[in-house]
C-alpha cells in the first residue's frame, strides 16, 4: 500500500464540474479520497505532501487515438516507450489502435496487451479492438468476446470501412454491447492516391489532392447509419468545415454521435507542408486555414468532442522519402497538451474547453471512471505549468520514432508531474 498523497496549493481545473479554483486533493490507495476547493485538507499521518505552488492540477489526459509499434514493429515504438512519452506529455491513459502486427482482432490479443501494458507501461493502455478481421473491411470480429477481454471500443484504426451495408450491420451489432464504434471516415475512391489537401497548394507542389468530400460524404452516411441503428458512434477525426456542419446538424437529433479531432488539424494547416516536409504528411491531411478556423469553432461550441494526438510513430526509412512516397503519420503524445494550449494562449478556446476534450469527454465516450477530479475516481492527475516555455527538440523525444510535426516548435505549457493510479510516473526536471 502506498503512502497517502496530498497535493495542496493547486489551481484545480476540472472540466467535469467546471471547476477552476484553488484547492487541494488527497489521494489514497490510487483513488481520489478527497477534493477540497478553497479550503485546506488536513495532512493525514504519513502522507507525502506536494506543494503545487499554484500549478494547474487537472485530470490526466485521455488520448483516444494512439498507434504503437508493439506488437510487430517494436523498433518504431513499444508500449514501454509510448508510456514514457505519454507520461511526459501528461497522458495518463491512451486508446491503443488495433493496427498492429498481428491486428488486435481477437480477445486473446486484447488480454495479452493489457497484461503486457501493466508490466511495461507507466500509463493506462486501453486496447481498442478491430471492427473487421485483419482490418480488411470484410468480416466482423467478435465484439462481445473482445469487450469481455477488455477492449474499450471498436475501430478499424486508420482504415475506413467502405461497405455501407457492412457498416450498418456493424453498428447494429455493436449496439448490443453498448460499444462505441469509432470510425475513420475516408472514401477511398475519392482519396485515391491523394497525399495532401486538395487545393491551390497541392497544385503548386504538383501533389495529388484529397478533397474534403472524401471525408464529408462517408461522414454523412455514417451519421445516418448511427441514427438508424441507435449505436454510439464516434467520428474518429474530422478536419474540415463541412464535417463540422454535418456533426452539428446530426447532434441536434442524435445525442449518441460524437466527433474527435487530431491536434495536428487544430494546430497546423496545409501551409506547414512548405517544401515537401514529409513529417506533415498525415492522414487525415492538414487542411486550409479556413478549415482550421472552422474546427476551432467546432471545438469551442461543443460540436467537436475530443482532441487526440494521433500519435503514429514511423521510422526515418519510411518518412525520409519524397512527400508522395513517404508514410503518413506523426508522433504526438509528448506534445499533445502543449500544442493544445496554443489555442488557449492564442485566445481561441478557453482552458476548460480544451481540457474537457482531453479528459472528461473521452472518459464519457469510452465509459471510463477517470477523466475527472472527483472523490472515488482513479487518481490519474497531472500538474502543469500553463506558461512554461520550451522548444521541441529531437534529442529530448522519448518515443522510439522521431517523426514529430512540432520539431523545433516553441510551445508554452509543460507537464511538471504525472500521476497514474496515485503513483508519480513522471516529474519534469530542468
Amino acid at each position: 500500500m502506498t503512502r497517502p498523497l496530498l497535493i495542496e496549493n493547486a489551481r484545480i481545473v476540472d472540466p467535469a464540474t467546471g471547476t477552476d479554483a484553488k484547492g487541494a486533493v488527497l489521494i489514497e490507495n490510487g483513488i481520489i479520497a478527497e477534493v477540497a476547493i478553497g479550503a485546506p485538507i488536513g495532512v493525514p499521518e504519513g502522507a507525502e505532501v506536494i506543494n503545487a505552488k499554484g500549478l494547474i492540477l487537472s485530470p490526466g489526459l485521455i488520448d483516444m487515438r494512439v498507434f504503437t509499434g508493439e506488437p510487430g514493429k517494436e523498433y518504431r515504438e513499444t508500449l514501454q516507450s509510448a508510456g514514457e512519452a505519454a507520461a511526459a506529455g501528461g497522458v495518463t491513459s491512451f486508446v491503443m489502435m488495433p493496427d498492429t502486427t498481428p491486428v488486435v482482432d481477437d480477445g486473446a490479443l486484447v488480454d495479452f496487451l493489457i497484461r503486457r501494458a501493466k508490466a511495461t507501461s507507466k500509463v493506462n493502455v486501453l486496447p481498442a479492438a478491430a471492427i473487421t478481421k485483419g482490418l480488411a473491411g470484410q468480416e466482423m470480429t467478435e465484439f462481445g468476446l473482445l469487450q469481455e477481454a477488455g477492449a474499450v471500443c471498436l475501430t478499424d484504426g486508420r482504415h475506413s470501412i467502405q461497405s455501407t451495408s457492412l457498416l450498418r450491420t456493424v453498428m447494429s451489432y455493436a449496439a448490443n454491447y453498448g460499444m462505441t464504434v469509432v470510425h475513420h471516415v475516408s472514401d477511398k475512391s475519392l482519396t485515391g492516391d491523394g497525399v495532401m489537401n486538395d487545393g491551390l497548394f497541392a497544385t503548386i507542389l504538383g501533389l495529388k489532392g484529397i478533397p474534403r468530400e472524401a471525408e464529408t460524404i462517408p461522414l454523412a452516411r455514417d451519421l445516418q447509419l448511427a441514427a438508424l441503428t441507435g449505436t454510439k458512434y464516434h467520428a474518429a477525426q474530422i478536419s474540415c468545415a463541412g464535417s463540422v456542419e454535418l456533426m452539428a446538424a446530426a447532434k441536434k437529433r442524435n445525442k449518441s454521435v460524437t466527433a474527435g479531432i487530431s491536434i495536428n488539424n487544430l494546430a497546423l494547416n496545409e501551409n506547414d507542408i512548405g517544401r515537401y516536409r514529409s513529417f506533415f504528411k498525415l492522414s487525415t491531411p492538414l487542411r486550409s486555414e479556413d478549415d482550421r478556423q472552422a474546427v476551432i469553432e467546432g471545438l469551442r461550441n461543443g460540436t467537436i468532442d475530443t482532441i487526440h494526438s494521433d500519435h503514429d510513430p514511423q521510422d526515418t526509412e519510411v518518412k525520409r522519402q519524397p512527400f508522395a512516397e513517404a508514410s503518413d503519420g506523426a508522433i504526438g503524445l509528448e506534445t499533445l497538451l502543449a500544442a493544445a494550449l496554443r489555442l488557449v494562449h492564442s485566445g481561441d478556446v478557453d482552458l476548460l474547453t480544451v481540457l474537457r476534450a482531453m479528459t472528461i469527454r473521452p472518459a464519457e465516450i469510452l465509459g471510463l471512471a477517470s477523466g475527472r477530479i472527483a472523490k472515488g475516481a482513479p487518481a490519474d492527475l497531472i500538474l502543469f505549468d500553463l506558461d512554461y516555455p520550451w522548444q521541441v527538440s529531437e534529442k529530448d523525444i522519448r518515443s522510439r520514432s522521431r517523426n514529430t510535426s512540432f520539431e523545433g516548435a516553441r510551445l508554452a505549457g509543460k507537464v511538471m508531474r504525472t500521476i497514474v493510479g496515485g503513483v508519480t510516473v513522471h516529474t519534469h526536471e530542468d
Partner: protein
Amino acid sequence: MAQDRASKTSTPVGSSGDFPPFNQRHLLSIADLKQHEIVDLLDRAEAMVPVSRQERKSHPTLSGKTQINLFFEPSTRTQGSFEIAGKRLGALVMNMSVKSSSVSKGETLVDTAATLNAMRPDVIVVRHSAAGAVELLSQKVGCAVINAGDGAHEHPTQALLDALTIRNHKGRISGLTVAICGDIANSRVVRSNLLLLGALNVRTRVIAPRNLLPSGIEHLATEVFTDMREGLKDVDVVMMLRLQHERANGRMIPSVREYYRFYGLDAEKLAFAKPDAIVMHPGPMNRGVEIDPAIADGPASVITDQVEMGVAVRMAVLDALLPAGDSA
C-alpha cells in the same frame, strides 16, 4: 530575328566569364528564380546557341567537371539534351538510369544521394516521378542539383527553353498571350511555364476539359478556359501538352477520338489564334491525339526549334550553376 533587349541584364558574348555570378546553388524550381535571373539564363542560353551551330561544337568551360544524369524515369529527350549540353561544355558526363530498381532493393532516395555524393560530382541532373524528390536529394548532396522534372511539380529547363524559343520567334516575351492546352492537372511543364511566363509579364491561358484542370489553377494562370476556340482566340503562342494514354479510354476522358475532336489542335481551331501564332509542344507528341500531324509539321510549328534551344538552355544552366557549386 529582332530581339527585345529592354529587360536584359548582361550582354551575351559566349563566355560565362562575362556574366555576373549566378546567385543560385541549384535549379530546382522556377519559383526560386527572380525575374532578372530568368532573363540572365535566357541571355546565357542565347549565347550558347552559336556553339551548337558551329562546326566544332565545343566550349570547354566545364572541363574537369563531373556531371551525373540521374534519371529515375525514362527520358530520351531531356536526358540526351543534358548529356549533349554537358559534353559540349567539356564535362565528364555519366548517365545513371535508376528506374525503380533502387526502391525495389530497399534503397531510399536519400541513400542514393549519399552514394552519389561520395563520388564527388560537380552537378547532378535529376528526374524523378515524385514531386519534391529532387528538392529532397538536393538537401543531401554537396553539389549543384538541376531538376529535370519531378512528378507533376516542375520542369524548369523546359520552361526556360520554351521562353527562349518564344523570344527568338516573337522578338519579345513580355506582353504576349500564351495558351497552354491539354492535361494541365498532371503536367510539370505547365507549372514551370506559368511561373516563368507570369514572372515575365505574359498573359497566360490554360485550356483543358474541367477534369484535367487542377484546383486553384485560376490563381496561377491569367485565364482558364474549357473551350479551345474561346481559349485560343487571338493568342500569340499555342503550347500543346502530351496526353498520357493512361488517362484515355474512360478514365479521365472518354476516348482519344473525343479528345482530339474537342481538344486536339487542328487548323480549324488554330485559326482562332493570331495569324502569326506559333505552335509549341514539349514532346514527345501524340500525333492525331493532341495535335494534327499537319500542324505539328507545318509552318507555325517551332517544335524542333524547342529541341535546339533545349541544349542551349541546359548548357547555360550548367555553366551558370557550376561556379556556385565550386564556392559551396
